[in-house]
């Protein structure tokens, strides 16, 4: 995190469209040069709004946005030199692919020969050599997407924004394009701010992910940290599957606390500083829970009631009633075949306190 140039910086940025409701609240975020940062969050959480403020189409209600340290408050969009890929591509339908790509170069008064050469290079980058003459309407969704990316890169901006660029593609194409975008970004070393509400996409592509929720950033971290060490219940459930238990702290011993969920006492790893009597949210990943462990192996062991079993090929999803939750899911690898557990069985489960993270409850943060 240190030693690199800060490319984009949001400092205390607020945004309200109607003058009352803040859709972006006190946003602080730094993007390093050459970094691939993803804004991830549910629909309506303010991701597009942030991008629009960065591109210059919306003005922040409060706070400052800086690019390479200079505030861009007074800079119009066309002078920001930011490549932008819109969700629905926004390829000009009446112009050919070549003309679409040439447009940003022509308005920069680059001479004809240079334009042709750069257009060709940009198309080669997205592996669409020879498509200059086609109209956007004559391309497949994935090809249009590549053209949109090529157009955002052709004038060699140092910063590229992408707003859910793969939203309209099917899953196979999405995965292929995720890889392509990543490859291109690495090749050129541009800074990318990427928006998606698909957590798998965010995990697969990003150097860091900023998780948005209701106009706020919940956590900014590399994907594996978000997964392994979520700081909030929202992040814990938004990134991958997680089981949440709710309880009160009975006692604390260094990093480990004991929490009372109403029916059981669970030992958990304390992420946030919590004292005795505080309310906590406990998060346990379904795949970190063992079914019928050897007795005494885990310090958290409970009796559970099997409510439902879903067979998913390589693994089973088992829904349990345990520790005051009726929706506790565990994943068991399909190593023994069908019939390892049956519905209405009573089983034992176990997990280590290190895999059970005690977080600050979401609602408490809202009040604060």
């Amino acid at each position, binding site marked *: 995190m240190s030693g690199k140039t800060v490319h984009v910086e949001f400092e205390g940025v607020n945004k309200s469209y109607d003058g009352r409701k803040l859709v972006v609240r006190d946003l602080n975020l730094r993007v390093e040069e050459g970094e691939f940062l993803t804004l991830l969050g549910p629909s309506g959480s303010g991701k597009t709004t942030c991008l629009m403020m960065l591109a210059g189409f919306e003005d922040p209600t409060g706070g400052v946005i800086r690019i390479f340290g200079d505030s861009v408050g007074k800079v119009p*969009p066309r002078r920001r030199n930011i490549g932008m890929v819109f969700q629905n591509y*926004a390829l000009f339908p009446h*112009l050919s692919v070549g003309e679409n790509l040439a*447009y*940003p170069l022509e308005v*920069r008064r680059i001479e004809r020969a240079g334009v042709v050469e750069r257009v060709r290079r940009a198309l080669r980058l997205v592996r669409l050599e020879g498509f200059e003459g086609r109209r956007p309407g004559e391309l497949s969704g994935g090809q249009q997407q590549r053209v949109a990316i090529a157009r955002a890169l052709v*004038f060699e901006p140092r910063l590229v924004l992408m707003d859910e660029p793969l939203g309209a593609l099917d899953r196979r194409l999405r995965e292929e394009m995720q890889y392509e975008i990543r490859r291109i970004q690495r090749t050129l070393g541009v800074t990318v701010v990427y928006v998606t509400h698909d957590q798998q996409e965010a995990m697969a592509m990003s150097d860091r992910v900023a998780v948005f929720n209701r106009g706020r950033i919940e956590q900014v971290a590399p994907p594996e940290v978000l997964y392994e060490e979520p700081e909030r219940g929202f992040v814990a459930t938004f990134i991958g599957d997680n089981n949440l238990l709710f309880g009160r702290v009975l006692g604390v011993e260094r990093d480990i606390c004991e929490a009372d969920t109403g029916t059981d006492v669970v030992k958990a790893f304390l992420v946030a500083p919590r004292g005795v009597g505080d309310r906590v949210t406990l998060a346990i990943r379904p795949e970190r829970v063992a079914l019928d462990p050897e007795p005494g192996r885990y310090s958290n062991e409970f009796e559970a009631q099997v409510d439902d079993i879903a067979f998913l090929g390589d693994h089973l999803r088992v829904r349990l009633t345990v520790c005051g939750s009726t929706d506790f899911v565990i994943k068991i690898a399909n190593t023994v075949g069908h019939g390892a557990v049956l519905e209405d069985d009573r089983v034992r489960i176990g997990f280590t306190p290190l895999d059970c993270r005690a977080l600050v409850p979401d609602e408490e943060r809202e009040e604060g």
Partner: protein
Amino acid sequence: MPGVIAEAGRSRLSSSFLRSLKAWLLVLPLLAFIGVTFIVPLGSMLTRSVHAPVVADALPETLALLRSWDAAGLPGEAVYAAAAREIRTARETRTLGQVATRINRLKSGLRGVLSRTARQLRSIGPRPGDHEPERAGQPPDDATPWRDTLLGIDDAWGEADTWLAIRRAGERFTARHYLNALDLTQSVDGGVVAQPPELRIYLPLLGRTLLVSLAITVLCLVLGYPVAYLIAQAPPKRANLLLLLVLVPFWTSLLVRTTSWIVLLQSQGVVNDLLVAAGLLGDEDRLAMIYNMTGTMVAMTHVLLPFMVLPLYSVMRTIPPHYMRAATSLGGTFFQAFRRVYWPQTLPGVGAGSLLVFILAIGYYITPALVGGRTGQLISNMIAYHMQQSLNWGLAAALGGLLLVCVVALYLVFDRLVGVDRMRLG
């Protein structure tokens, strides 16, 4: 098995037949309405422009005999006899006026000749030997009485041109009206020549109509485009309000609107008063802005503006805002973005609006009639004149036909250039 298949085929056939029957029944009332109020009158009008049965019906026998006349020298006595008889009959059945008018158009002065002849023939009355068909086509016989009688009434009966004119006027189908409408004329011997420049009326008028319509179309585009853009960019509520304002002229009576223009533009009107009061104009040189071409153009532009704004708006509304955003974020100024990205995408609307305004303008009648004065008249005013005052319906129909040809030609050109299927009318 084959029986079953045939059965299924038949029932499929009959169900599709029923469906199309139902569709036809649904549109039948409209079809009937259009047929009665549009196709039939249009057809009869177009027929009228080439069909001229008056003379042929009134002088059948004369014409039949004339057909075998070689046009050298004078026709035979049989022709004179038949003519005398049929002119008398025409006078009795009161068709002589129309007949004389038609013949007179081919050779002026013949109207007087015919009516004088008819009058005098009545005083002579019929004679025995009126019917002598066996003499038809015989060489001229100076001794026969009918010829002398007619020659005695008017010298014109002794001129071959008179008979040529009658023969020509007797043709049932004629291109005469179209020639007339194109400022061409046919001499009695059948040659087509252009009218001398000072007598040309319709072609210059048609030219002026096309030019004025073009000017009005351009004006509407220049005035309507920014308005349509504004409406398309406005949030829905405001857009509806603005659209309402655009449509107000539609809902105001034409007479009220026209009168308002008169109040504004006449020489003692509001605009002139303001200009004089502001000292921009002397009291004696007030501008003539109405009862001339200016008045026609101003009032028509106002009337036709909605026909430009609506198609433009409907096209602009479908252009998502992110195109312009993309164009500016890619580095274009507003003007560059507009020229390269927005304007080309509105072309179907521009085309539709222009075509609509232009076609409406070249056929526009009421506004020029009210505020056009003497110099602000268009071709349709001439059509109205021939319909209502000169009662030359054939010519009116021919002018209308000409206008129709212009519109269709324009449409085809437009189709070639822009493509009608790309056009959006609203």
